[in-house]
């Protein structure tokens, strides 16, 4: 395990590919260069714990993606909302990696309860769940326009 000021990562057991869990803030001091040697082949990255990625962090991430691209194909899963924002905005943010799932915001129109839940992506299409609200039992809906939140699937 490598610890830096604002970003940490650890590898967890997985039956499939080596799985790396990233948590914290991706900034210029993220130290992702130190992670590159640990990626020896195709890997999965759990990005649900990435709370923020700032502008210099985007540049660090792109360098990281470029450095590991040849060892893929990699998979990104449980991408947090800040990661989804960058997927939608920045050219080549995921490199050649496939996005397996994202964390998406859900909202209950009846009582205002909010939920962040995992949405899987199959055949380049989000499989939107319809969870019941934990507060009032009504069906919750995605709190974003699908075309906007999943824009990265269109290019």
């Amino acid at each position, binding site marked *: 395990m490598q610890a830096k000021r*604002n970003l940490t990562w650890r590898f967890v057991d997985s039956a499939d590919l080596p799985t790396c869990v990233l948590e914290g803030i991706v*900034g*210029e*001091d993220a130290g992702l260069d130190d992670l590159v040697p640990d990626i020896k082949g195709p890997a999965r990255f759990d990005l649900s714990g990435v*709370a*923020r*990625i*700032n*502008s*210099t962090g*985007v*540049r660090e991430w*792109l360098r990281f993606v470029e450095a590991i691209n040849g060892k893929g194909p990699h998979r990104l899963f449980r991408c*947090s*909302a*800040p990661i989804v*924002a960058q997927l939608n*905005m*920045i*050219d*080549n943010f995921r490199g050649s990696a496939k996005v397996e799932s994202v964390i998406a*915001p859900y909202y209950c129109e009846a009582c205002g309860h*909010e939920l*962040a839940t995992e949405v899987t992506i199959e055949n380049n299409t989000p499989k939107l769940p319809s969870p019941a609200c934990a507060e009032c039992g009504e069906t919750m809906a995605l709190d974003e*326009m699908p075309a*906007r939140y999943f824009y990265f699937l269109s*290019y």
Partner: protein
Amino acid sequence: MLKPGEKSVLVLQSSPKSRRLTARAVAATGAHCVAPPTGEESTQALANGPLDVLVVDWENAALAQQAVKLNPRLEVVLLTDRPAFERYAEDIMDLPMSSMIVSSFVAVPDANDPVATRELVTTVAKLFTGDIFGLEKYMGWGAAIREQEIRASQQAEGIVQSACEDAARSGMPERELSSLGLLVDELCTNAVWDAPVDAEGQPRYADKSRAQPVALAPNEYVTVRYGSDGNLFGVSVSDNFGRLDQDLAVRYIRKCFRHNDQQVSKSAGGAGLGLYMAFNSVSSFVINVDPGVRTEVIGLIRLGRAPKPPAGESLGTSRSLCYFRTKRPKKGE
């Protein structure tokens, strides 16, 4: 006929509902407001002048180009809906406008958005008076604004955390907290590393790595203010240099509307994305500049939801980008 000292506003909005709501908001500033219903009358009103502010929608944007040619001192406010903004963002950025307000209230029948209305009133009043600085202008009376000063770059992250804790206590949803964190992070980064220049006007820290700590000189201290009024959480970050001109701001913001390998600067220093990321994190983004003296960037995040249409597709959250510059009278004026 204008009374002495009275300001004049022309509202060109295609939708009758939007026209009425817009004219009502503008009238709240005490201005003389004309909102003609037809294109012919609009052209006539433009020719009649004198005008201080023109409020147009996307459909009437071409008229704004003509009007500014006739009257270069005219202030233009674009008031449009989100679908038009997303579709025509790059063209919109080319307009000779001082402010852009993208709001559902101009597009949604039967929806009235008090937050957007207040922002329009504030925008027009700032253009009239030249009194441009201050987070308070966007917040309801009684809002407690906290102020902190950055004297060294390492303090910035503590202020990010502090603002997010205050916002969480104000009821900001979890998903918006990450946007707020990014906003404060980017605005502080710009103010600490990009704003300061030396006596020759050369940037002092812009080429340095953002991971390298910087201790600011007293004239470089950055002021961060934030607070909530129950509807909005607002943040302002000010520096003492006043170097963020409108063309530069628009250039940085617009480059992220297109996906290409030029988006991210690979040189030392910043990545060139900060302004766009800050803009993208908020519902309202305001840049106030007194050239050579002060820059204040304000970001506002809604604590609740913008009104949605009664049926059909959500128009998403409202959004605005406003640029204000202190005007100094020229010699002889």
